[in-house]
């Protein structure tokens, strides 16, 4: 019994060291924030589109289909990096991608889209970032997968990369389509 007490510090240290080792996992990002809205309905929103002739972008507009919502801006370098992947997704997957502009000028966005191409079904502007806050956005780019019932199923913060698309996004889309 007395012996056990002396082993206790070593045992505790072993547990803590194991956690430290886990903490060093390169895949781990200590500043990554998990979304609070997974499996919850997408927040209510109604935003003016970039193109004045188009209708307002709101929950009704994206309902009944599987859609991607992508928050982006022209001053955002990683958005530029993920842009070709978004175009590829839109074409190959026949997936509507709705773009929401985060803290940017409409003129700058139009120039940016003219330069790089427009993968979005509709581009809407979020002037006071309220919709972004309702979604839980804390930076750009961020991408949300919304299912047919209007629920958020997946949130990716940061620029999309081929591995994430391959290993997480596409399988998810397949599941949702069934």
């Amino acid at each position, binding site marked *: 019994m007395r012996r056990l007490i002396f082993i206790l*510090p070593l045992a505790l*240290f072993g547990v803590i060291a194991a956690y430290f080792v886990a903490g060093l996992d390169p895949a781990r990002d*200590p500043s990554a924030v998990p979304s609070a809205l997974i499996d919850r309905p997408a927040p209510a929103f109604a935003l003016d589109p970039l193109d004045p002739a188009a209708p307002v972008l709101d929950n009704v507009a994206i309902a009944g289909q599987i859609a991607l919502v992508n928050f982006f801006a022209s001053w955002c370098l990683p958005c530029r990096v993920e842009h070709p992947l978004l175009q590829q997704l839109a074409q190959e997957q026949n997936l509507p991608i709705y773009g929401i502009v985060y803290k940017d000028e409409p003129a700058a966005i139009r120039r940016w889209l003219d330069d790089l191409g427009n993968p979005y079904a509709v581009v809407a502007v979020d002037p006071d970032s309220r919709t972004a806050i309702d979604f839980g956005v804390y930076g750009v780019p961020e991408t949300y997968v919304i299912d047919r019932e209007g629920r958020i199923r997946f949130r990716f913060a940061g620029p999309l990369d081929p591995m994430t698309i391959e290993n997480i996004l596409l399988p998810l889309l397949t599941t949702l389509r069934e």
Partner: protein
Amino acid sequence: MIVELGHYALVLALLVSLVQASVPLAGAARREPGWMAVAVPASLLLLALVTVAFLALMRAYIVSDFSVANVADNSHVSKPLLYKIAGVWGNHEGSLVLWVLMLAIFGAAVALFGRNLPATLKARVLAVQAMIAFGFLLFTLFASNPFARFDPAPVAGGDLNPLLQDPGLAFHPPLLYLGYVGFSMTFSFAVAALIEGRIDAAWARWVRPWTLAAWTALTAGIGLGSWWAYYELGWGGWWYWDPVENASFMPWLLGTALLHSALVAEKRDALKSWTVLLAILTFAMSLIGTFLVRSGILTSVHAFATDPTRGLFILLLLIIAIGGALALYAWRAPTLGAGGVFRPVSREGALLLNNLLLVTAAATVFLGTFYPLFLDALGLGTVSVGPPYYIATFVPLMLPLLLAMGVGPLLAWKRGDLAGALSRLVIAGVCALIAGIAVWWWKSDGPFMAGIGIALAVWIAGATLVEFFGRIGLGRIAPRDTLMRLVHLPRGTFGMTLAHLGMAIAIVGMTGSSAWKEEHIAILESGGSIAAGGYDYRLDAVTRIEGPNYWAYRAQISLLDGNEVVALMTPEKRFYRVQRMPTTEAAIRTTGLADHYAVLGDPDGEGGWTVRIYHEPLVPWIWGGLTIMVAGGLVSLTDRRLRVGAPAPMRRVAASEAG
């Protein structure tokens, strides 16, 4: 060339540390005096080599040798000399060389001053110290080499982060490392004792000065860092419970516990096994702190540029050193003899309570710091643990500790008279109550804890003075005898009195600043003013000035008491050219009872400027209190009794009265 010399010196140091770690250890096991004697010259040689390496690196900084990658990344031609020197340890690689230098200094000190140590103990202590040095040197040379070259060399340098170009922060790392590494010495003693299989009076006597030195340095280092954050970061705060701050606080808490536990071990030959464990854990916290800051596993404002591969290396070092020591403890500690007996109500009992509370407090801070990591690793999501958690858990633990702090010194060893002690403390208790009630009445709209904080501080100060005056017999015996006693009082007693008084003063400061701080923000045009803390702050003008490696907006703010201009304050907003970073230089005017704190913000483009005024009551008492605590530690270190290696027969009348 000199840089290569430094590099070579470091490699040689690695080899020397290997020899120092193995030969004396084997010599102690085989009782070979020749082998054990290797330890002393080896540690001196190690010190010489590491000093050469450190000086070589420093020279590269001073002459701005940008072919050295480390210098190029962290220094600049136009940086003032003090910060070129401080830049040596203002980055990861250089700070590791400083770490190893301190390890070598402590090892050499034991080698030189340890004449009274038993030969086997001394050999083992120096061997363990060398093992730690070996680990760090390996890490430095293979994963964090400060002497790596750029070819071709860049012309200018990357410059040191302007926030770090500051006298306070220049000395903060060396003091901190002195503390962390000082605890490596107690660790080495603890492990050596476990290897020896016994702890005796000599061991306990030897552990205390190193603990004291490390604790004093760590207190100074933390205080300096806190003070720097207060005047540099521009929001008038001095502690944020940031993971890196906690990384220095945990060894401090455990180090304070160790200081008090070592006292019991030395005077009463009790709690020896516990003291050994505590020594191991305190150094473990130093290492964990090093790991935390450099590995990137937690987000923090303070972290060095992080790199998980470095983290892995440090973790390996940590596992080997601490895992090995704790395994040794589990194996050998049961065979360490039991020590003196004491009743629960006694000075030992009070010190045991002190240890219990401090260790729980350290565990709480540890839990709060690493809980997000634990949850994340278990896949249970993630939480943030910020100041609100620590205030809710840490502060309640401190209350009984502060209460006990007043009573403990008045209890006798082995069997204390609680009733007698409390009866002597009635006056201190009454003063504390009056102070608390006064605070509640005067600042009735302030937080409730303010009264408790002030009351506890008065309690400690009163109790400490009661104990001190009792010791010198003030009022009880003839004044001449009191004076004689005062003069012959051991320095350790002075040190303790100073340290406890310093703590009381610091608590007053912490309570006042937390409870009654005022923050006022407004856009001011020339002539406009803000009222705060009974004064007015009037913005007179904002001008643009040029500095050595920056330009700045400087505001002149008049501090008005009624209509009289009491002072002129000149906060600045600086823009450092190379790193393109804006920093604020707050203007602080200290009255001794409070700080007037002015910060210049951004212009609004129409001639108005954002000005922030903080009124910080009692903040200077924090720095004053901490300084007195450090002074207490230093005074204790000069105690002649600490220089005696093992107890020798001598007149100890004063000591037996005091102790």
